[in-house]
């Protein structure tokens, strides 16, 4: 039987982005994990995690370690579930377009093929690096620019597990010029979790909730020194209070709306105070040495990746820097790249 549908799947460390080729409305973001409440037997997988609203003490297991799939049993179960119930196709009748992290180890690549063909049973598969797909889409949305016509650009992929600066030319990744910072959204979440646990309320067991809080409150500061000075004391303008979920009326918690006249909750242990962490946590991407990681920051990484490419490409690469990945949503991350020396 000839395959008749093409499924596109981006297998990310945090979420799987999946959909049918040529049909944007079928695009879904599914958590790439299984979750269960501490102390209970029943687990939840992939899209059922989204439907599950009680986020307190959620234990999350992910198949991906440092950006590479290592837990294949888990990953196979998630893929099977996603293909069957989210996309709604029979896995044995499809073509699959799949992303694979750069520099995947040969042993892991072989396992990937084995799982796809023998256990999931897809008909045909195309495996490619995510930055090229991003750049293709970017070129599709902004046709006409010189760099996009040449299939040339620098893709900054700020993901969940690590951050890559990837020069692309003629739709090919320039492998020797790729640069990586071993710091991504997951590390930031855990870092923030440790900080607020020490300073405010113990959140060490609430990684899932911390992820939500980070997404709502963090931003990239244009001038960390000034902002740090401004966040001193009680009258700090960066101070926010996150009301933790009570498990009854408020399942996810929310940011306290002080301007709207909402008052502090009576119990102190339900109000998480977040202050300078809001911008000092994302700051780690720009200065990893701040948290002890001996690697250069994002701006220097981009420059190094461009410098490592052929000199004639420098102009084209600098003219077309594309920022993708889950961390791109941190407000103002874009401007900072321009201002940072």
């Amino acid at each position, binding site marked *: 039987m000839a395959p008749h549908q093409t499924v596109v799947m981006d297998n990310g460390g945090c979420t799987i982005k999946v959909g049918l080729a040529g049909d944007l409305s079928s695009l879904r973001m599914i958590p790439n994990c*299984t979750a269960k409440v*501490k102390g209970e037997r*029943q*687990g939840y*997988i992939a899209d*059922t995690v989204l439907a599950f609203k009680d986020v307190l003490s959620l*234990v*999350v*297991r*992910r198949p991906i370690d*440092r*950006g*590479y799939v*290592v*837990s*294949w049993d888990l990953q196979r*179960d998630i893929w*099977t579930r996603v293909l*069957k119930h989210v996309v709604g196709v029979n896995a*044995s009748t499809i073509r699959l377009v799949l992303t694979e992290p*750069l*520099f995947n*180890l040969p*042993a*892991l690549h072989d396992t990937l093929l084995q799982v796809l063909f023998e*256990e999931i*049973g897809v008909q045909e598969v195309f495996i490619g690096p995510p930055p090229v797909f991003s750049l293709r889409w970017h070129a599709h949305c902004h046709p006409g620019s010189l760099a996009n016509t040449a299939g040339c650009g620098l893709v900054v992929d700020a993901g969940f597990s690590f951050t*890559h600066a990837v020069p692309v030319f003629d739709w090919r990744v320039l492998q020797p010029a*790729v*640069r*990586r*910072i071993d710091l991504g959204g997951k*590390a930031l979440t*855990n*870092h923030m979790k*440790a900080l607020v646990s*020490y*300073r405010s309320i113990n959140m*060490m*067991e609430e*990684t899932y909730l911390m992820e939500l809080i980070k997404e709502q409150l963090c931003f990239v500061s244009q001038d960390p*020194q000034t902002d*740090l000075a401004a966040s*001193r004391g009680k009258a700090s303008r960066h101070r926010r209070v996150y009301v933790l979920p009570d498990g009854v009326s408020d399942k996810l918690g929310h940011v306290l709306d002080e301007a709207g006249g909402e008052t502090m909750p009576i119990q102190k242990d339900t109000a998480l105070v977040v*202050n*300078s962490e809001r911008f*000092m946590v994302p*700051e780690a991407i720009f*200065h990893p*040495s*701040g*948290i*002890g*990681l*001996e*690697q*250069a*920051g994002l701006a*220097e990484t981009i420059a*190094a990746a461009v410098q490592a490419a052929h000199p004639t490409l420098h102009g084209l690469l600098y003219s077309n820097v594309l920022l993708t990945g889950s961390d791109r949503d941190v407000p103002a991350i874009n401007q900072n790249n321009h201002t940072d020396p």
Partner: protein
Amino acid sequence: MDRRSLRERKVSERFAVLDKADQRQAVNARLEALEEDDAQENALAPGSDDEEFTVREDSDGESIPAAGGSTKKRKLKTGSMRKTRGMVAERARGPKLFRDWLEEADLAHDPGPNYLTAAMGPPRSRSTRHSCTVCGDASKYSCTRCGSRFCSRRCNATHVETRCLKFTL
């Protein structure tokens, strides 16, 4: 062979300065912890039989299809799952981590661009933005023992009392 003074004083543990390697080890342990999935996952994983992780579907009671895309549907009884000795052993160990795979691949002798060559080197300039590990404010000082940053005597006192090398070494 160097002669050591017989009158060597024993320095109190509170003032003993760690050497660079030990400080580095403490920092690395902290960085390693940043990539962990869940704090209590490790406590869960080995051998605790009643706390095992079984994934079921909630609505129709039908299990996740088994390997090979077989259409046979197994009914999964609550919490029971056929276990082979290999599965039990793997659960006890947990899946192989990326670190182990990387060691096996032995990339140090690989000439081409690979995972190791893509890693970004150390920064050319040191960051001037330090923040106090206790309160988050800008900090000027660092702990004499472990090298963590702090901003004031009060924060240092808190640091020494609650944190300084208590959980990492």
